[in-house]
Structure formats: C-alpha cells, structure tokens
C-alpha cells in the first residue's frame, strides 16, 4: 500500500510546515501595528489581512500553525468521513442496485495515511515560511500580556498598537470519575490512532461526537454513543436530530440518549463504563473512549488581567459587537470569544476585527449571517434563526418544508431521507433561517445564506432556474410552494 510509505514523510512535512522545529524567532521591531496571538484560522486570516493593509504584523503561535481546524479538527475529520462514506455506500450497495465485493475489509492504516497526506497538503498554505514571505514576523512560543500594550514571548517583548487574541478553544472533558485514569482520546489525540479500536464509546452527542461515532462505526468499530440529552445536537431542529439518530442506528451504532456516564474503571484489560439513564444503570465494556468533544475557550496563561482584558472560563474573552475587548487596544476573534465555534466564523470575525482595529471600521459581529453544518450522513446544515428563536422574539414564522423524498435527484441518488425547511416571516417572503438535512446539506445551505445576505426573498428564489436534476432543487421547490400560497396564485388556480 503506497499510502503507508508516504505517511511518515507526509507527517514530517506537515510538522515542518506548522511546527517550530528548526524555526528561529525573528528580532522584534519597535512597535507592531498588530500582534496576533494564535495561529489558527482566525489568527492566520487576521495576520494576512493586516499585512495586506501594509501593517507591521507579528503572529505568535504556541504549538502548531493552522490551529484546530488543520491539525485536529475539520481537515482530518472530514478526510476520515470521506472514507467512512465510501464504506457506508459499500455496506448499503444493494440499496443502489449494486453488489458489494464479498468481503469488504477496512484498511485502517491506509485511511489514516490518506488523512495525514491530505493534512500535509493543506498545511503548506499555513507554513511559517509563507507567513514570513508575506511580511509577517512569526514567533513560536507562549504569549502572555505584560501590560496594556505589550506581550512577552520567549526571549522577547512585543510592543503593539493593537493586539488580537485568537487562541481558539481546547477540548472540554466532563469530570467523570475514573476517566482520566482509564485513559481517553479527544479530538487532539484521536487522529494519532494507528489501530482501529474494536469497541469504542463516544461520550457526547454534539457535532464532532456524532461525526466521529458514525465514521468509526462505518470503519467497523463496535461503537456506542452516549448523550446526556434527549436528542443529539440539542440546538438543532427536532426532526433533524431524530433523522440523525435513525441514521446512526442504521449504521449499527448503539445510540444511548438521555444517558450519563458516571464512572469509568479498568478491569481485566478493558474499560468498564457505568451508565445511568433515568433510573436504569448499566455497564459497558469498551477498548477506547472518545471524550472531550465539547470545547472551551483557551484563555489560560495569557495573563489577560495585565492587559485589562475581561474574560470568563465558559464564554471566553468578552468583546463588544465590534470585537473589541475591555482594553480598547485589544480585539479578539474566533473560538476564544465566539458562541459559534467554526472555522468560517473564525475567519469572518478575524476580518471584522482587523478592519475595526486598523482601518477605523465599524463592522459588527451581529451583522454576520452564519451557516453551519454537521458532517454526518446525512449532513445537517443550518443558517439564521430557528423557529423557537424567532418566536421568542415575537416574530411570526411560517416554514416551507420539502422532504427530500419529493426531490427527483435525491430519489435517483438513493439519498432521499432528509428535508429542506425554510423559515420566513409570516406575511412576507423574507427568509429568517433554514435547516437542511441531506447528504450534501453543507453545499446546499450556501444558497440560502446568499439569499439572506443579499436580501433575496422566496419569491425571487422561485424564479431562479435550478439545474435539473439536482438536490438543491429542493430549495426552489420550497420557494414555489410559497408562491402557490399567494392570493394571486390562488386566484389563477380558481380560474
């Protein structure tokens, strides 16, 4: 298998691109226009944008450029998910009129090698050399505020006119007795696996927990997912969460909702996990545990107090709508300060922060229209308001629902479990939000996002010719359903 031979080289190249080995920190200039703490998506975008504006920029990274997304988040997980989708399709080949080759064996080493190769390829764009070539001073090491306008890095002090905190977030592990002693993986370590665990418990039914549970289940691990809430993805549309539960069950994953992990111990070489669901107790034996799929902002060690920057352990750095902290010179962006912890929001918030910090901008975080997607199969994507949020604001809502089983392309693709739900303000065609459950929901949601940002209503969407047959035609169908409810359409029908 050539992948395996490539793997060590690929991993070494990635480390060379994003880690500090062999890197020599530059001598600081007198006073930077912008010092960015954190080399993840927000920090990289901010540094590049600021350099593009002609600013003198320093970027400080503690560990690895690219942050969670590149190294232990989106990139490795989506690489694995793609392979898992392949195995899923093989498993259900008969559904497509196909026949799976008799004995489909999972080559875990090969799929992990592919993931590492992809991670290396994408890391090239985030390398320290590239940043240096763009005129950015890159410092590796821990950063700590020394005062309201200076930051200490190893062997140097950086003075700044403006600073941006973009340190991201780290895994949050619930304090479960025995878990630390028994050993567990988080998103920061799961991608280092070299053998597939036979039995895996995933604690937590948020996006990453669901994605990885499904992927490992499709790789052949006997997977259980325990979620202490009644549904997965508690913030999402109820139908979406239920469809996800069914999908996980179809993949052979044991779904334990309303279930809390109360204790972990190691006995006879296996991890034994005590679970409680209401008044029912059970014990599950597994070989590996994936926990810490929640995230908390990384604020430790920054000495934010010295700069007068307010923060808390849960919400992270406190900012106003312009992303300015309680120190007028210091801004924040990305997971360290945002409710929506996604790479694309980190990117968008970084651009706002740089514009406001260096160019006198007045861009607002609240003006962003933020889509997101959970990359399970089917995917679950959302943008804008949920119905409950709109109703809480006394906005009358009406939803146009198109089940994917009414969409020709979804039927031909054998991917007809899901829906498009578009929420509009009652009495108008203004789109308030949408949820899509479909195999490619993450691609489809962008059309709705565009419509919302551009102020395009459902009436106009109904006039947009969509290539036929496509699954995104479901969006046009929803718009047409809206149009049919208009008085003029009714009148025509009557004639």
């Amino acid at each position, binding site marked *: 298998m050539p992948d395996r031979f490539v793997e060590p080289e690929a991993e070494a190249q990635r480390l060379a691109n994003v880690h500090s080995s062999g890197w020599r920190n530059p001598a600081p200039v007198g006073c930077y226009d912008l010092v960015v703490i954190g080399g993840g998506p927000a920090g990289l975008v901010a540094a590049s944008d600021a350099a593009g504006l002609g600013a003198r920029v320093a970027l400080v990274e503690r560990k690895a450029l690219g942050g969670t997304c590149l190294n232990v988040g989106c990139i490795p997980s989506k690489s694995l998910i793609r392979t898992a989708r392949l195995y899923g399709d093989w498993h259900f080949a008969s559904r497509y009129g196909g026949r799976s080759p008799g004995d489909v064996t999972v080559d875990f080493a090969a799929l992990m090698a592919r993931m590492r190769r992809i991670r290396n390829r994408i890391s090239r764009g985030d390398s320290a050399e590239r940043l240096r070539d763009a005129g950015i001073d890159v410092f590796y090491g821990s950063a700590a505020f020394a005062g309201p306008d200076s930051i200490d890095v190893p062997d140097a002090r950086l003075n700044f006119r403006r600073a941006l905190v973009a340190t991201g977030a780290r895994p949050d592990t619930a304090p479960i007795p025995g878990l630390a002693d028994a050993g567990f993986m988080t998103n920061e370590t799961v991608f280092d696996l070299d053998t597939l665990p036979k039995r895996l418990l995933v604690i937590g039914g948020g996006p990453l927990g669901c994605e990885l549970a499904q992927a490992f289940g499709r790789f052949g691990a006997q997977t259980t997912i325990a979620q202490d809430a009644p549904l997965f993805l508690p913030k999402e549309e109820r139908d979406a969460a239920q469809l996800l539960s069914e999908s996980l069950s179809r993949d052979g994953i044991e779904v334990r909702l309303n279930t809390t992990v109360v204790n972990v111990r190691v006995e006879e070489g296996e991890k034994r996990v005590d679970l409680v669901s209401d008044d029912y107790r059970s014990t599950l034996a597994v070989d590996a545990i994936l926990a810490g799929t929640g995230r908390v902002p990384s604020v430790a060690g920054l000495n934010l107090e010295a700069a007068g920057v307010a923060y808390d352990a849960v919400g992270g750095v406190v900012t106003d709508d312009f992303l300015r902290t309680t120190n007028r010179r210091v801004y924040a962006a990305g997971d360290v300060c945002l409710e929506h912890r996604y790479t694309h929001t980190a990117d968008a918030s970084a651009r706002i922060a740089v514009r406001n910090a260096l160019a006198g901008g007045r861009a607002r975080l609240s003006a962003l229209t933020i889509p997101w997607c959970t990359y399970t199969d089917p995917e679950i994507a959302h943008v804008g308001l949920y119905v409950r949020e709109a109703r809480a604001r006394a906005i009358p*809502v009406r939803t*146009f*629902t198109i089940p994917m089983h009414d969409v020709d392309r979804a039927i031909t693709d054998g991917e007809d479990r899901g*829906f498009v739900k578009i929420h509009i303000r009652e009495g108008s065609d203004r789109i308030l939000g949408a949820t899509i459950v479909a195999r490619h929901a993450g691609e489809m949601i962008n059309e709705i996002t565009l419509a919302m940002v551009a102020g395009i209503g459902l009436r106009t969407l109904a006039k947009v010719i969509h290539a036929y047959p496509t699954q995104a035609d479901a969006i046009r169908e929803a718009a047409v359903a809206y149009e049919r409810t208009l008085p003029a359409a009714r009148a025509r029908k009557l004639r």
Partner: protein
Amino acid sequence: MTTVRAPDDDALLDALLHDAVGYFIDCARADNGLVPDNSRPGAPISIAVVGFALSVYPVAVAHGWLRRTEAVTRTLAILRFLAASDQSGSPDATGYRGFYYHFLDPDSGRRVWRSELSMVDTALLIAGALTARQYFDGATADEASLRELADALYRRIDWRWAQNGGSTIMQGWKPECGFLHYGWEGYNEALVLYVLALGSPAHPIHAGGYGAWTATYQWENLYGHDFLYAGPLFIHQFSHAWIDFRGIRDAFMREKRCDYFENSRRATEVQREYALRNPLERAGYGGNVWGLTACDGPGDFANARGITGRRFFGYAARGVPFGPDDGTLAGWGAVASLPFAPEIALAAVRDMRDRYREMVPGGRYSSAFNPGIDCDGHPWTSAGAFGLDQGIVAMMIENHRSELIWRLMRSCPYVRAGLRRAGFRGGWLQRDTRARSPGIRR
C-alpha cells in the same frame, strides 16, 4: 355533524362503536374498576385507559349498552380506588401529588414496571373523571358522591409541582431519579394536559406555562397544507376526544387564522398524502390505507422470525413525513380522524377494513397491522386489543355523531377556565352555558 353518510356507514360505525365500548365493559375489573392497558394476559392497568373507560361509560349508557346504575357503580369503584390510593410517591405507591404512575398492578393498584409518574396520562385519566362528573348529574347519593370524588381528585393534582420550577410541564417523574428529561417540545398530545392544569382552582400552573409550551410550535407548509406540525396522528386526535376545538382559538391559532380542529383535518390530509407518495415503498399504503401513529409493532415478531433488511419497532410513535415508518399502520387512526375529515376517514375505514379483515378480529380494532410482513399468509397483526385505541375509537365516533363528550366537557367549568387562561377565545367558549344542561340522551 352535517356529513351525509350512507346507511351502511351508520351500521359500520354502530358496530365499531359497540365493539370498542365493549372493551371497557368486558375488561374492567369488578373490584376496583380499573381497566388493563390491553387484552393480553397479564397486562397491567394503564391509567390513561382508565380515563378512557370513565369517558366511554356515558356513551355506553346513552346507547343502552350499560344501565346507568351499572355505569355509576363502575365509575365509583374507580374513583374510590383512586381517592384511597397510596399517594406517598414511594416506589410501589399508586401516585404522588395527585398524579399517578403510568402502569399499575391490576390486583393491588400499585406501580409496576418501574413506570413513571405520568403527567399526560394523569391528564387523560382526570379528563375521564371530569367527563363522568359532567354526565352523572343525577340527584342520587351515588351520583352526588361520584361528582364529589371526581372534583376532589382533580383538585388535589399539584400541576404546579410538575413544572419543576420551570415554565413547561415535565413529562414524567420517578422516585428513583426525579423528573424525567425527554425534551417534550413541539406540538404534542399535551394540549388537554395544559388546559386541565390551567383550569385547576387549587394548583394551577403558572400563567406563562402555556405560552412557553406553544413557543415550541412549528407552523409548516407540507404537501401544500399549512398546519401546526406534528408527525404522529394521535397527537392531532387525543386532546380532541374531550375538547371541542371547533371555532375557539388561542393566540397562536389566531395568528395563523386557524383552529386546532381545522388543524387536525389538515394533519389527516397530510397523512393521506404521505401514504399516497409512500416514499419508503411500504406495502399496501395508499389513499385509503394510512394511519402512522402510536401503536404496537412487529419488532419482536420480526426478530423472532429473523426478518432483516430494515428495522421494525415494537410499540412506538410512528409519524409522517420523517418517520419512523416501518410499514406498520393503525386502522383505528382513520376512525379517530372521523370528526375532522369524515369523507377521507370513512373511505379509509371502509377500505382498510375490507382489505385487511385481520386488523379487526371480532369487530374490535387491533392496535396495528403491517401488510409488508407475511404472517402465515396474512399481514402481521398486533395480538389482542389496546384500551387506548378502543377509547379513542369510541369517543371519536360518538363525538362525530352526537358530540356527546364534547358537549359534556363544554359545560365543565374547569375546562372552560383552563381554555380561557390559555388564551382561547371565540366560538362556544363565548357563550354562557352555565345553566344549561348538556342536552344529552340519558
């Protein structure tokens, strides 16, 4: 109702009604009056089924199938048992704070199966008690006692406690772990629960509770129908067994220029439309073969027979359009939609009955059938009969034809108060019926 029915429709409905009512007459225990969840050997008591029994006895009296004194005796037995039951909330009690455990031992009337203290099932039980209270308005000592007991049972329910310090009513509670957290959001069968909880003169829920619950509603346009969305059909039926929602509207329905009755008609249309589209290509589905709702299922049977290829469920709430849908239908679901959409419901009742005689063994609906599972040459059919199904069949046929239960509950001051506190206005609720007899055939 103004629907014109063929003579054979009347005969059919008469027969279905008679057999459904017969479940309660046949299965009730002689000592405590309690009624089992289903007709299978060893079945526990279901408090919701007891609520249906209390509601159906007036129907039986009205049709001459039960003497009034016999109905009073049966009703009194139930109410006296409940009044004297262990309300300590201990693991083997009967209830707590006026609520009752979902399933009880037939002999002792104490909790079985580690079941939960069920708020909505208590509501169905107490709705039955209030139905009896309204119907048995005679001057005899027994009927007076019956009314007092029903009143006391209703008044002692601590609805506010069931809010657990929050806004909405919790679904259940267990002595072993406290309140259950099942995420009971969105429109569901709890409408009658909220009305009763708001109408209590003793322990009403906080005024904001109803608004907090309806805040989770979703008004959706699906298959060309605008409606308050909920997948399983029973959600659109159960509260309507007691409360006549025609022409009365809460704030949500005023906003949508609809009412819950009309909404259930649309939900019925959506069920039919789903069956016509039949996206999962289930056997038998069609314009007159539908009914995805809470019912028994072939899960155990399929496992025992080693039937693979798709997942089958046991007793579960099936729904449209996003399932679960394992090809299992409840024939009685169409009957329970009679008042809302009589034309399409009657057609479905007739057609399903003609095509799948197995689902009405001896004239009484089984809980469910699955045309896609062959069971010795016949579609799989749930064994025996379930009390919930018989109760809703009896009450909805009766409401469809005589409005008996609706008229009784329209005259109930607690229901009227609960509806008003929930913000309902208009229709019959505006008219004063305080002094009026419900005008029922006795």
